[in-house]
C-alpha cells in the first residue's frame, strides 16, 4: 500500500439557498495514494465539482475534514493547483505571462527557463507572445495545464478539463495528460461525467450518485497504459460502470 496523499473523512456539505438547506455531499470518505490518478465520475450537478473544490481548499466542508500529507486543508495552496477548464487563463496576460504567473518567487533567468520548458511541453512554441483570445479552446486548455505544472505542484485538481473541447482534441488532450502524468508523477484528481474518459485515464474510478453525492463504488482499472480501448477487460470495466450508474448501453 502506497502512502495516502489525500484523505477525505466523512465529508458532508450542505448549501443554504433562499433559506432552504440542500445537502450536496453526503458522508464522503476516500483515500488517494501518492502519484495516483483518480477520476470522480458522476452525473452533471451531482456535487463532484463541489467535492473537488473542497479538496482544493476553495470551500470548507460543513462537517468532516480533508487531509493532505496528514494536514487538514484550510485553503488553496500553490502545491496543489486547480485547473478550471480553459476558463481560468488570464486573458490580459500573454501565453508566457500566464505560465510565469505563479513563478514570482524565482529569479528572472530561472523563470525564463521554466516558462520555455513548459511552453515546449504543451506544444505552444510560436505562441509565446499571443493573448488567450487568439488561441483555440485546446490551446487554452494546454496553457492552463502548463501554468499549473510550472509551479511544480505535487497535486493537480482537474474539473472536467476537456468538457468544452471537440471530441478529437479531447482524445489528444487525454493522451497528453497521461504522458505528463507519467513523466512527472503528480497525484491527479480528475472530475468527469464521461465514463469512457474515466476508464481510459484513471487508476481508480470513484462512481458517485446523484445529489446528494455519495460514493457508490470505487472501480480499480487494472489495465496498464497505453490502454487498448477495444480490449475485453476495458469493455468489461466500462460496462460494469454503465450498469452501476443505471444506464443500459443501448440507445
Amino acid at each position, binding site marked *: 500500500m502506497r502512502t495516502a496523499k489525500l484523505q477525505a473523512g466523512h465529508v458532508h456539505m450542505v448549501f443554504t439557498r433562499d433559506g432552504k438547506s440542500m445537502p450536496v455531499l453526503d458522508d464522503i470518505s476516500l483515500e488517494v495514494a501518492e502519484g495516483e490518478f483518480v477520476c470522480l465520475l458522476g452525473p452533471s450537478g451531482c456535487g463532484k465539482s463541489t467535492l473537488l473544490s473542497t479538496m*482544493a481548499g476553495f470551500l470548507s466542508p460543513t462537517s468532516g475534514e480533508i487531509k493532505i500529507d496528514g494536514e487538514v486543508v484550510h485553503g*488553496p495552496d*500553490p502545491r*496543489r493547483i486547480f485547473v478550471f477548464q480553459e476558463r481560468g487563463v*488570464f486573458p*490580459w496576460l500573454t501565453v508566457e505571462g500566464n505560465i510565469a504567473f*505563479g513563478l514570482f518567487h524565482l529569479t528572472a533567468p530561472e523563470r525564463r527557463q521554466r516558462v520555455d520548458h513548459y511552453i515546449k511541453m504543451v506544444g505552444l512554441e510560436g505562441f509565446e507572445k499571443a*493573448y488567450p*483570445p487568439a488561441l483555440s479552446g485546446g490551446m487554452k486548455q494546454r496553457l492552463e495545464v502548463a501554468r499549473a505544472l510550472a*509551479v511544480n505542484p505535487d497535486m493537480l485538481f482537474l474539473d472536467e478539463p476537456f468538457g468544452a473541447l471537440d471530441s478529437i482534441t479531447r482524445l489528444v488532450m487525454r493522451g497528453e495528460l497521461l504522458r505528463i502524468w507519467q513523466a512527472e508523477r503528480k497525484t491527479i484528481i480528475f472530475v468527469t461525467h464521461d465514463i469512457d474518459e474515466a476508464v481510459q485515464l484513471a487508476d481508480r474510478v470513484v462512481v458517485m450518485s446523484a445529489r446528494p453525492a455519495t460514493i457508490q463504488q470505487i472501480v480499480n482499472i487494472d489495465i496498464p497504459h497505453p490502454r487498448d480501448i477495444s480490449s475485453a477487460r476495458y469493455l468489461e470495466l466500462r460496462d460494469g460502470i454503465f450498469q452501476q450508474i443505471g444506464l443500459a448501453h443501448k440507445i
Partner: protein
Amino acid sequence: MIVRLRPIALIAVLLLLWQFAVTRNPTHILPTPWAVATGIGELLQHGLLLKYVVASLFRVTWGFALAVLLAVPLGLIIGWNRRANMALNPLLQILRPISPLAWIPLAILWFGVGDLAAIFLIFLGCFFPLLLTAINAVRGIPAVYINAGRNFGLSSTALVSRVLFPAVIPQLIIGMRITLGVGWLVVVAAEMIAVSSGLGFLIVDARNAGNRYDLVVGAMVIIGLIGLLLDMGMRSLEHLKSLRWSYSED
C-alpha cells in the same frame, strides 16, 4: 474612402442649407454658419479662444483626474468588500441621481466664485459614475480568476495588483470615457455661473455683452469639436493590445 467621406459631405450639405435658409429669410433667431466662422476667427485673433479652451480643459482635467484617483481605488475596495458594498450602496444610489448642477450653490458657498468651485462640480459629475463603474467591475470579475490567483499563493496586495486590477481595467476605461464626456458637459454649465473664463463663460458673456449669437454658436461648435477629440483620445486606449481581450470575447 467614399464611405468615410459621407458624414463630412452630410455636414457640408446641412451647413449650405442653413446658410441658404438664413440668407433667404433674414432673421435674428439664428446666425449664419459664415457669421459663426467669422466670429470664431475674431475670437482667435484676440487670443480669447485659446485662453478659454485652456481654462475649460484645465478645470476638466483637474476635476476628472481627482475623480479617477479617488473613485477607482475606493470603488475597488467597496466592490471587493461585501459588507462595505451593502452599507454604502443605498447612499450612493441616492447621491448618484443628483445632477452636479444642483450642487452649484453649495459649491460657490464652499469654494467661492472661481476655479475651485468649477473643479468641484466636475469632480462630482465624474466621481459617482466612476465609483459605481469600479464597484460593478470588481463584483463582475469571474470567480475563476480570483480562485486561480489565490491558488498560486498571491498575497492580498498581489491579488489586487495582479488579478483584480487588470481584470477591471477594460470596464474602467469605458467608464472613464463616458465620465470624461460628462465632465465636459458639466464644465460648460459650471462656467456659466461660477467663473469668468472658459467656453461656458464665453457663451453667457457673448449674449449678455451684446447679443453676439454668432459667438454663442461658435462656442457651441468648439465645445462639440473638443468633446469629440476627448472621446477619440479615450477610445484609442481601448485599442491597446493587452486590453483587447475584453471586447473580443463575450
